[in-house]
């Protein structure tokens, strides 16, 4: 079984992640997931490819902390976080988060908190490659 928190170049399967998430508990009634995908334009510019770079060791450590914190904070039964570090095109998967709980409110709250915190706390950078050139994405405040 794959680790619940991973940084990887390869794509992932939601079915496999959900099966792994469920494996730990028969009390899981609600699973909320978030899948972030590459879009073909961003702020009006055509985006041909997006490439990612990570401070790998710190990023993985932060993602593991996020998972542990979310499980405690929202009473989740389990959670998984997978982030690709690769060059992707429109439609490709980038990040996947799954939060499982007895009931749906905790699952939704935990999942949303995880992606919001991931964007704030995990050292990964995104570069957009457009017909006009490449540029690092500056996150909105």
């Amino acid at each position: 079984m794959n680790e619940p928190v991973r940084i990887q170049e390869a794509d992932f399967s939601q079915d496999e992640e959900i099966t792994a998430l469920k494996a730990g508990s028969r009390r899981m009634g609600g699973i909320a997931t978030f899948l972030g995908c590459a879009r073909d334009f961003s702020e009006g510019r055509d985006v041909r490819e997006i490439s990612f770079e990570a401070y790998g060791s710190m990023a993985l450590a932060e993602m593991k902390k996020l998972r542990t914190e979310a499980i405690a904070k929202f009473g989740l039964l389990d959670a998984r976080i997978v982030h690709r570090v690769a060059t992707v095109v429109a439609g490709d998967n980038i990040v996947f988060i799954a939060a499982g709980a007895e009931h749906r409110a905790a699952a939704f709250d935990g999942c949303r908190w995880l992606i919001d915190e991931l964007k704030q706390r995990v050292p990964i950078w995104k570069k957009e490659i457009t017909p006009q050139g490449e540029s690092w994405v500056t996150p909105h405040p």
Partner: protein
Amino acid sequence: MIRVLFFGPVADRVQAREMQFEYTPGLTLHDITARVGMQHPGALSIVSFIAVNQNQVHDKQLALHDNDEIALMAKFSGG
């Protein structure tokens, strides 16, 4: 030896992924960022987060230890 790591937009401006500085007793985080900033002011201007040994730190007066790993990082844009 102190290793300073650069990623993404900072690495592009420094045009390097890593710099090394000799460790001397009493060396602080501020000493290191000042040295990088002298050489690459444009890179330092986009540094929003600093990590020492993979933990974010906010106090630039932090005393460093030999073999510390410092990362000077732009705002994250993962996810």
